[in-house]
């Protein structure tokens, strides 16, 4: 790998660091009586409200339909996600220092696997919360489940819920695109040779 490729690969690895400081996903909800909107941010190690007390309000509202309360402690993902991201940074730096294009391929493969696994996990979690409802819930609408959308918007009773990647995902995207660029560049360079 050329020096500039190593630098770019190293940079791509370091671009995962911001994930420790910002959310990478957002679920926002609006309803007639919530003109200001409420919502949740998903971090690699936390769930927070868009505003300070949104999580409490969401849990309060969800109890009417019998949805489980959302508590950070209930998600083992938040325990091991920081370690996975940490490992990826470490691995990316090794790939950069060693200059082995093979390792860049592995990096891209791992990122793809992580991304897919993450989305599957997210879907299952949404499914669980949306379907496993307390049978004694005050509000029961026959046939209704409350699974939030994986990506995009969905009307759930009076609430329009939207689920979209957030700022942290830009860095995830760059940390995939840059190594992909490295691969492309290195290949082109090889061919030219």
């Amino acid at each position, binding site marked *: 790998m050329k020096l500039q490729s190593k630098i770019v690969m190293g940079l791509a690895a370091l671009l995962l660091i911001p994930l420790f400081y910002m959310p990478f996903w957002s679920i926002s909800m609006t309803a007639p009586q919530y003109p*200001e909107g409420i919502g949740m941010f998903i971090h690699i190690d936390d769930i927070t409200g868009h505003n300070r007390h949104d999580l409490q309000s969401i849990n309060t509202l969800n109890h009417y339909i019998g949805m489980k309360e959302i508590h950070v402690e209930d998600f083992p993902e938040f325990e091991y996600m920081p370690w996975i991201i940490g490992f990826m940074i470490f691995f990316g730096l090794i790939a950069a220092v060693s200059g082995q294009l093979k390792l860049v391929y592995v990096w891209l493969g791992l990122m793809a696997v992580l991304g897919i696994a993450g989305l599957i996990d997210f879907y299952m979690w949404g499914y669980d919360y949306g379907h496993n409802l307390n049978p004694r819930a005050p509000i029961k609408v026959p046939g209704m489940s409350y699974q939030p959308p994986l990506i995009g918007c969905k009307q759930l009773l009076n609430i329009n819920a939207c689920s979209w990647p957030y700022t942290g995902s830009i860095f995830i995207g760059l940390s995939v695109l840059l190594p992909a660029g490295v691969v492309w560049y290195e290949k082109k360079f090889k061919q030219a040779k």
Partner: protein
Amino acid sequence: MKKQKSNMLRGMMIGAGFVAVAAFLFTGCPSQQGMLDTRDAAEKVYVAPGEHDEYYAFLSGGYSGQLSVWGLPSSRFLKVIPVFSQDPETGYGYSEETKPLFQTSYGFIPWDDSHHPHISQTDGDADGRWIFINANNTPRIARIDLDTFETKEIIEVPNTGGNHASSFVTSNSEYVIGATRFSIPYEKDLDVPIDSYADNFNGALSFLSIDQETGRMNLDFQIIVPPYNYDLGRAGKGISSDWVFFTTYNTELAHTLLEVNASQNDKDFVAAVNWRKAAEFVAEGHGRTMDAEYYHNYYEGNQGFAVSHVKNEVTVLYPEDVEEFMYFLPTPKSPHGVDIDPTGEYIVAGGKLATVIPVHSFSRMLEAIENRDFEGDSNGIPIINYEATIAGEVEDPGLGPLHTEFDGDGYAYTSVYISSEIVKWSLDTFEVVDRIDSYYSIGHLMITGGDTKNPDKRYLVGLTKTAKDRYLPTGPKQNHPAQLYDISGDRMQLLYDFPTIGEPHYAQAIAANKITERVKQIYEMEENDHPHAVRRVGDARVERDGDVVRVYMASIRSHFRPDNIEGIRVGDTVYFHLTNLEQEWDVVHGIGIKGANNAEILVAPGQTKTLKWEPTRTGIYPFYCTAFCSALHQEMQGYVRVSAADSDVELVWRTGN
């Protein structure tokens, strides 16, 4: 000159009459003409649904004791802030937390007459931190926080009979002032014949300092003055910001049939007080300490109980004890308002029985003091020659000029009670340039951003005394009206007319953004320092200590915890300490209990309030959430079982199964 002018005016009015008749004859039905104007006015006050007004207006409630909040220009009613009167709607004055605010040296007083709201100032501009308002009957001053729109402090003003000339703040909110309307014996509880007025009675001017961090007031000192009636006051601005001014009437020293006996002198006084000098004298120890008894009630901490402190002393400054710091300016005739123009130079008195509006010059007053241009003294307080301070007299102001505000563009607007109109006059020529009717009999008026260095020449609100035929009739006693005028142009234009609450005596309007940026949406549960708060649902419980039962109750959509309570006995005193655990804007819970000799209490998100209940009969008592808080609000209810005084029913509580 005077004669000529009034002839001219009469001529003009007759002329105007002819024009009106001619206009009617030539245009036919006048209502069509009115339609265009109406549409124009409607557009100016229209604020679309969901849009916000440009100004908050705070109108005093007068004999309601409260302060009402409105949006301008739509004249939308926003809220009543309860201040001096109990408010069963919110439980203010009924909850244990707020009862101490009502304590006075005469005991618990459930009502007062609130007159003159004034917003705190920084550098002569309203800053939106706090609004102060006076109680006229049992003299007090209240402070309302404008981040929560709640009354947080009430201080009694001792040795005062009717705190009317209040609660005006100085340019940097150093002081909020008060003065006695009735002179009374200054010595506490002195029992003397009323006709010993001239010998035993005194006036007192009060200066309450304001803590700039907390807003908390402290009665710094009072000045003992001759036994006149002190009517209204104002702090100076800019060049005169070290001074405050009060009007006096009854320099005749009458104590009976004042309508006649206090209307004999051609001139009464404006009292000019250099408060900075007076405060220095006090700080240097020139004041005397007098016995007094007065209550100071305020919230300690964030949102717990209001507490009452009794004070037993007041520092009093006698003018004769120190160098000169106050003067009397002769002013015709039983003046009401004393209003300072935005530059601080002109002191305008509303001589309610005078035929002119006298305008004193502050700089000429200083010159006269320098030159000792005095015509005598009253109790050692120099009386400055009228000619020495007067800058002009506004002629033909109508009958009964009361109170003046300014537009910052060189014009003054005076309310005129008897002729029921507002007159606009020039601060340059002292001539009336415009006049417009009020409906009916205007008391005070208010200009947006008024009584500051920088008023906004946008709107004027006239606070009038009788509605008569203005609205759909509502019986022999109707609410007092207010009229909204557009003053942005050369001519005043009536835009809107709306009934208010109580009897507004004065008002304040402030650009909305000065307040919206500080308004809180919730009380932070984390900062709830109430000793009986329930911080988590799991902490809800009931405790008995002798005959006192405390219910530590949590409310969250849509239930109370606990909602079944047994083991209460007749003769118990039960305190429901209700904490609203919600942390969402505007999600309010309340509680009402059948048969409780009390009001409901409403609890804001994150707050704890206490309802005291003394059951007198056995039985099952339902209670419920009084605020429509949620879809299952109607299910938000519970039961208390009350057993006989000697029963041994165990104290139990539960929620759910």
